[in-house]
């Protein structure tokens, strides 16, 4: 796509689609003629695009560790944690066995009926995907169910490139259940099951517990592996060093992290922090 050098270019995690759009409407109050180019993907895919030369003015990701792992210090000086979330199991009224599933039996329901399709986002591209694998590892220990992690991995029907696509697949009936951020489930008006804090990656008091979960993915160089440890979910935002619109980008971040942005984040199921 041809880009306008004067436009504000925002690259963001799919889960932030709606709140980012709403913050842009506030920004237009100050810059009515501003052109904005929005692009979104899984957070690791976003960061890799910037590392490969994509020029953007704001980058907002679902995991600050992606900044540390791929972008800091070469492409970004620092990032700002602005919201938290938690993992849930999303479904709708047409999902198979939606009348039976609850917070105690979810794993038995998913694994006992071969007709049920459940999915996650791609753990190589999207934090929601590797956070799902962490949740499964933590669930195996929390519920004392040996083999649960491998059984859930083996029963997965498909991977989606980002959490937003996973929610769309659920709405379209391609899958019955999706491991999602609560914010995305709320934005899409999906039903969801809450998980205990010990496995849902929401609570800073459980940092050491979450760190017992680990996912290894392909690193940034061929043959290299990157190890990601479980941690409380924190969304973060930054202005890349090569931004052409630093002043406007700063104004946007002040909206996102200020009182009006907090209201928008809260209304979209995120917790401003």
């Amino acid at each position: 796509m041809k880009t306008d050098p004067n436009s504000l270019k925002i690259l963001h995690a799919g889960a932030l689609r709606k709140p980012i759009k709403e913050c842009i409407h506030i920004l237009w109050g100050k810059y009515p003629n501003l052109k904005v180019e929005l692009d979104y993907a899984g957070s690791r895919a976003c960061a890799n695009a910037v590392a490969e030369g994509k020029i953007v003015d704001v980058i907002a990701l679902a995991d600050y560790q992606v900044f540390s792992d791929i972008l800091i210090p070469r492409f970004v000086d620092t990032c700002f944690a602005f919201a938290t979330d938690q993992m849930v199991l999303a479904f709708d009224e047409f999902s198979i066995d939606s009348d039976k599933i609850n917070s105690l039996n979810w794993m038995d329901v998913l694994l006992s009926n071969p007709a049920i399709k459940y999915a996650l986002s791609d753990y190589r591209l999207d934090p929601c995907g590797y956070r799902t694998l962490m949740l499964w590892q933590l669930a195996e220990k929390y519920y004392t169910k040996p083999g649960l992690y491998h059984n859930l991995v083996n029963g997965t029907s498909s991977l989606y490139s980002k959490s937003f696509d996973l929610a769309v697949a659920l709405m379209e009936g391609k899958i019955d259940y999706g491991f999602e951020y609560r914010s995305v489930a709320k934005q899409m008006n999906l039903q969801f099951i809450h998980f205990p804090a010990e496995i849902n990656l929401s609570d800073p008091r459980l940092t050491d517990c979450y760190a017992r979960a680990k996912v290894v993915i392909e690193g940034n160089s061929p043959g290299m592996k990157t190890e990601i440890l479980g941690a409380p979910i924190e969304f973060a935002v930054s202005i890349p060093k090569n931004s052409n619109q630093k002043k406007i980008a700063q104004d946007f971040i002040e909206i996102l992290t200020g009182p009006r942005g907090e209201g928008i984040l809260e209304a979209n199921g995120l917790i401003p922090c």
Partner: protein
Amino acid sequence: MATGKNENDTGIPLDRMIQPMLLMLILKKPTHGYELIQSFNAVHEGEIVEPGTIYRNLRRMEREGFVLSGWEASESGPARRKYDITEDGIKALQEAVLKLEKQKQQIEDFLTEYNDLPNKGGHSIEN
């Protein structure tokens, strides 16, 4: 919570002790919400105060002028919003402490009066 003074006239609600606890922690050491959650101990036995509740109370106290926040960079993690207490926050905490002292005295008076009863209703209660 409605903005402004609450029914205790302390400016901060005392029912779950969330805001007094947060103000005390911030008075001891200005810090960010993530660390405050890690340090926070619920006053009521068995109660778990969710992270979202703590973040919301911090923002509410900032809107009401009891704390101020600014971004603080970190060497190992992201920059986070760091909270410091204001003069109004110190005053609200002092008023809350006075109110709590009064409540404590009322509870002690009640327990003393009860324990002094020769007949507590005819039933013994084992702890």
